[in-house]
């Protein structure tokens, strides 16, 4: 026999999305069904659900409409770079070729269509350059690729030759941070972190001097620890 669930006043308040004092008032007025036990009262879940339904109230459990695929706290640059990989001496003379060559090397999960991604990346460059200055560019697609969050990627490509990216400060680009984020919010967060880090001259120098993946990751990690959860 299924045990009948009893709810506390707090649980009822949360279920109906109302403050506890309102539930209390409804009890005193006799509006909401409850059971008395000594000096206190409690509610039977099935009575409350039936009452809410017959009064046209929508019961919501948990937050809807928020894509909690992963908590934004898990989206760090470090994780993204670890997922995406770091590549050195990347070949290419212009925007198109560096991006095209990069797509070949990136290991996309879930069998995504690479030519589609390439098109999206290029068309995004055409709207506005992703060169955010100081020799760094952040190519990304306009729409999310539908990557599940644990596969979000920030593949990093250090270029063999500097390439003109039409950056906002007109400096040629030496490193690409591809941003394949799971949501607009995550994208913004990663972006703002990178942009913040790039303002630090020391970070920029260390970035230019990176020779292998481990160096980059420890550099990023060390600096990212400065960010409290934001």
């Amino acid at each position, binding site marked *: 026999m299924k045990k009948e669930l009893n709810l506390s006043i707090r649980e009822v308040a949360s279920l109906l999305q109302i403050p506890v004092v309102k539930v209390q008032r409804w009890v005193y007025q006799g509006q909401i069904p409850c059971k008395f036990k000594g000096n206190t009262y409690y509610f039977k879940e099935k009575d409350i659900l039936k009452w809410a339904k017959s009064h046209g109230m*929508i019961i*919501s459990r948990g*937050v*809807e*409409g*928020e*894509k909690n695929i992963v908590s934004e706290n898990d989206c760090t640059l470090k994780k993204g770079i670890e997922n995406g990989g770091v590549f050195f001496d990347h070949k290419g003379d212009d925007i198109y070729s560096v991006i095209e060559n990069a797509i070949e090397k990136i290991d996309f999960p879930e069998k995504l269509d690479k030519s589609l991604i390439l098109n999206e990346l290029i068309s*995004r460059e055409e*709207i*506005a*350059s*992703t*060169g*955010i*200055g100081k020799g760094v560019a*952040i190519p*990304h697609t*306009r*729409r999310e690729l539908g990557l599940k969050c644990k596969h979000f990627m920030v593949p990093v490509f250090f270029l063999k030759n500097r390439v003109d990216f039409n950056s*906002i400060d007109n400096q040629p680009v030496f490193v690409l941070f591809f941003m394949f984020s799971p949501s*607009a*919010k995550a*994208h*913004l967060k990663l*972006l*703002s972190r990178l*942009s*913040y880090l*790039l303002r630090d001259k020391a970070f920029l120098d260390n970035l230019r001097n990176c020779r292998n993946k481990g160096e980059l990751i420890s550099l990023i990690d060390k600096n990212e620890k400065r960010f409290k959860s934001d």
Partner: protein
Amino acid sequence: MKELKLIIKTTLKNLDYRAQLIIIGIVVGVFSGFASVSLNFGLKKVSNFFIKFHGNFYFILFPAMGILITVLFLKYVIRDFEGHGVPEVIHSVSMKGGFLKKRSSVSKLIGSLLTISSGGSAGPESPVIISGAAIGSNVAKYLKTNDKIRIAAAGSGAAGAIAAIFNAPIAGIIFTMEVILGEWSTLNMLPVAISSVTATIISRMLSGNQIPFKHHLINVSINDIFAAAGFSVFLAAFALFFVRALKWIKLLFEKSIKSIIFRAILGGGLVGVIIIFFPVVKGEGYEVVRTLISGEFSNTILIIFVLIVMKILATSFTLGSGGAGGVFAPCLVIGSLSGYFYFQLLSAIFPQVQFSGSTLFALSGMAGILSSTLQAPLTGIFLIVEITGGYDVILPLLLVSFLTLTITKLIEKHSIYQYDLAEKGLLLRPRTDGRILSDINAEELLEKDLITVDSEMLLKDLIPLIKESHRNYFAVEDKKTGKFLGMVNFNDIKSYIFSSDLIKSIIVEEVMETDFPRISIKDNVVNILNKFDQSRAWSLPVVEDDKFLGLISKSTILDHYRKELKAQTEY
């Protein structure tokens, strides 16, 4: 002549609304009174004509023919087949400003004449109600009145009809207020009362001042009071059986027989079979009620029980297969039979106890069945008092009426008039939350002072717009097609707009929200509020054909609701 008409119309329209209502009450009362009297007259005449067929075995075919002709007449001749009489009036009055078709003034009158005189088990009251209401509605329509007056006029017609057909003016008023209009307001009561009085006068002038059932002096003892309480339980069972049978048999006919012709023939055939064996069950059954009240009726408990069941079935077959008629009269028959049944039962179980007699229970039974089937307890009480000409039994009437209703309501939430409306969400009583909100439409709530941006706009170009707008939201449209894509919420991007490097490389499309429901301009406020509830948003966009029209904010809905409530309430 035309000018004279125009002058009359204009003068009338500009009269104080109370004077208008009085005039409407009188006019509607006269016409609805005539409608009732003519139906009664017609029924008497036709049943006299048919008397010679009684006992003839061929009578088994009569109901089938009658219902078939009714159905064909309603569908093809007068084309007023859809619509169920009283529920249609209730819906019109609560949601459609009281508009009713002109032809409804006569269609169901003729239909029920055909159905009832050929033996169909139904009453002439519901058809007369819709006729009266339609008369009232169209008088108001002719005068081009506003919604409120038209609704009052329709209600007056219904009141007049009931008042005239039973010679019961109070019942007419109470029925209209309790069932049709659902509210007791002074604006409504004036024309309703006038119409009721006028119609009763017409009825008395033409048919004489008689009450349908003779008055019998009854002494009510304490035993009877206790017995009445117990009676309510039995009565509730019969009432529930009646209501359920009506619903299910109708549903059964509609689901299993697609052709209305076959439905009519089958239903009528079944009725014919029943009335051959139980002739008591046919037609309105007032004769039966008369004998039950006067105490002349006599039969065994078992037969009574069978009669009750047969009457319920016959009525369900008659109405479910397309016959025209109402449930008032069958309620009276079932109620009085139940009373007699209970009295016999009591006398058998408690032979030593003195009860007042079967009449008291017959009367209480009628009130109880009426109250629970129509869910109109006051109508039940006052009708019985008026048609039997006495307050003697008021105590058991009160008890039985309210107790039976309470028990019935535990299981059947709505009356037979309301259940199909309620299921479709069409039952909205005046000045209820849902009713007030349903008046407000999306267009009234639309806020259009939002700035739209195209999807490829850089954040840096958005900043001067942020300065310009008083809003936190911006609508994003596709640069090429102009289609609505999403909303940019300033709160989301606040933290990023202060870094000059980022704003030059982020486009609006990358930071907009897309995961929310959209409102359609055709949505009613109840839908809109549901969308708000589900998404927990405070503002939602109105999008039509992929085009952004504006925003609706949850907070302004409260403001609109309060204004609407004030507009509809007088202090």
